[in-house]
């Protein structure tokens, strides 16, 4: 059985690491070219022979891979190995008509164990910890990634299960959870729930919260850290290449280190696609360097990031990024789940049997719970002079979205035309 490509030491000399990255990149490009028609066609269109890619900078000549390509190649079109070598298949909500499907070989799973374990270890997680995974069903694939990574560190894991907030709190307290992996939105709910029940954080064994799925502001972090007496750590991941902990915080809590030996990061200007200047914000583009089943070449993440140029005080030489709240695409992140405007329209059309004129996606709150809010623009097809018909529309769409996205959605009917959400702006419902 082949062995997963190893991680290099976190403090490796950057030049030496770059050499390893180049070798892994060349191998990845060759495999993608040889085994995936999609990549072969696109490389040929640009007259690029992967054998001629002689430096990491040459990567910039290759075309981008976008989320829509994942849907267009549904389900297995981007796999680079025969299906018999695939041991796990993950699905993430995609863009357009189909979800994104990714596959893993045995080596790929071992690789992810390493990547996640590395990120957890940087947050101080060890064999003495009891780690509880508390994510929405839409992030189920990350739940498995975290479970495997924590088990690799020999921590005790309480895996992702469909428990109510109430039960999660019970487990947190009674099972003496020391580490929670969750989204900032869920952490806030958990925190408010504990206070509402009069549970003093001193009664808990909790010492660490790992935020996954969405960026978090300093203020939000401080609030949760102060209220629950915990240290908080941020992880960045992708749901398409599941995915968690591709970049992670170290004890310096100053930006996220990218697992560069497995992913090659670029930050580009969202409109021109050209690299941004040092320290400038742009869109994160990732190329996988070691995954076998599902190589991604220059995948546009839609996440807004900037490189931190200065070396980190922790001694790791893995490059660092700042993760910014806004996005470069038309995606709203709800409780870590990426919700795409076009995808929501597809689901709504399917549920109603016709395509409504417009809808707008916002981050809404129902009580303490953060969820998706969809403003559906009223038009002649939706409209009825009977309230019960309009309520039926709301209910149908809410049910369909909850089922398709794995998060709660609230639908509001709006007068006339609602503007489609601005790309990248995280709009909070009034």
């Amino acid at each position, binding site marked *: 059985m082949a062995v997963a490509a190893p991680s290099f030491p976190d403090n490796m000399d950057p030049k030496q690491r770059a050499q390893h990255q180049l070798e892994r990149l060349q191998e990845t490009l060759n495999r993608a070219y040889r085994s995936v028609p999609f990549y072969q066609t696109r490389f040929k269109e640009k007259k690029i022979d992967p054998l001629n890619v002689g430096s990491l900078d040459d990567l910039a000549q290759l075309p981008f891979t976008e989320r829509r390509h994942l849907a267009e190649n549904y389900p297995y079109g981007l796999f680079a190995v025969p299906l018999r070598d695939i041991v796990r298949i993950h699905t993430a909500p995609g863009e357009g008509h189909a979800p994104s499907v990714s596959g893993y070989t045995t080596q790929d799973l071992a690789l992810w164990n390493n990547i996640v374990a590395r990120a957890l270890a940087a947050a101080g997680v060890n064999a003495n910890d009891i780690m509880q995974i508390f994510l929405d069903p839409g992030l189920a694939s990350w739940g498995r990634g975290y479970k495997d990574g924590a088990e690799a560190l020999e921590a005790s894991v309480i895996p992702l299960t469909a428990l109510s907030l109430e039960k999660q709190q019970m487990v947190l307290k009674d099972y003496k959870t020391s580490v929670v992996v969750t989204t900032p939105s869920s952490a806030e709910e958990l925190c408010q729930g504990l206070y509402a029940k009069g549970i003093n954080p001193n009664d808990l064994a909790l010492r660490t919260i790992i935020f996954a799925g969405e960026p978090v502001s300093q203020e939000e972090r401080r609030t949760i850290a102060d209220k629950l007496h915990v240290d908080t750590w941020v992880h960045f991941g992708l749901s398409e290449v599941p995915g968690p902990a591709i970049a992670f915080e170290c004890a310096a809590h100053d930006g996220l280190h990218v697992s560069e030996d497995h992913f090659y990061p670029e930050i580009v200007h969202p409109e021109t696609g050209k690299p941004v200047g040092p320290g400038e914000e742009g869109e994160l583009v990732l190329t996988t360097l070691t995954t076998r089943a599902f190589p991604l070449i220059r995948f546009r993440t839609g996440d807004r990031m900037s490189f931190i140029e200065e070396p980190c005080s922790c001694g790791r030489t893995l490059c660092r990024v700042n993760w910014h709240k806004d996005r470069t695409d038309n995606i709203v992140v709800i409780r870590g789940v990426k919700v795409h405007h076009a995808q929501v329209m597809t689901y709504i059309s399917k549920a109603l049997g016709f395509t409504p004129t417009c809808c707008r996606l916002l981050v809404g709150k129902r009580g303490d719970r953060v969820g998706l809010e969809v403003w559906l623009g009223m*038009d002649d097809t939706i409209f009825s*002079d*009977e*309230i019960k018909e309009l309520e039926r529309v709301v209910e149908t769409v809410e049910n369909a979205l909850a089922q398709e996205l794995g998060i709660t959605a609230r639908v*509001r009917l*709006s*007068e*006339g035309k609602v503007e489609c959400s601005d790309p990248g702006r995280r709009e909070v419902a009034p």
Partner: protein
Amino acid sequence: MQAEQISIFIENKAGRLAEVARILSESKVNIRALSLADTSDFGVLRLIVNHTSRAKDVLKDNGFTVRRTTVAAVEVLDQPGGLLAVLDLLNGAGINIEYMYAYANPPGGNAVMIFRFDRMEDAIELLKKNNMRILEAEELSGL
């Protein structure tokens, strides 16, 4: 034998009803009867006006979603049991009322109720057969 009503979708927030009234007033449209059905988020305003087409056009031009619906305007005796007589007839025939509301200030002393039934034609036929008076569209908008 059916009257015309326009229904307008409005969000449940301050000033929307006044906005509809302002638009109609500026177009010299007179509101004859009105009902507002609402939920916590939105409402449907149903109107009978003297110039249905004009009202629909100006509201549409102002970005509202508007629909024309046919309804029945039924004269109801202004005495105890007046409404019950109508409802009993419909009930006996298994006809459902989707919604109903009262007409403002009808002439001749009797009340006029606006009805939307699930089976409009059956209902009208039934009411007429039982000597209930149903107002014509012109009669209604000219009231």
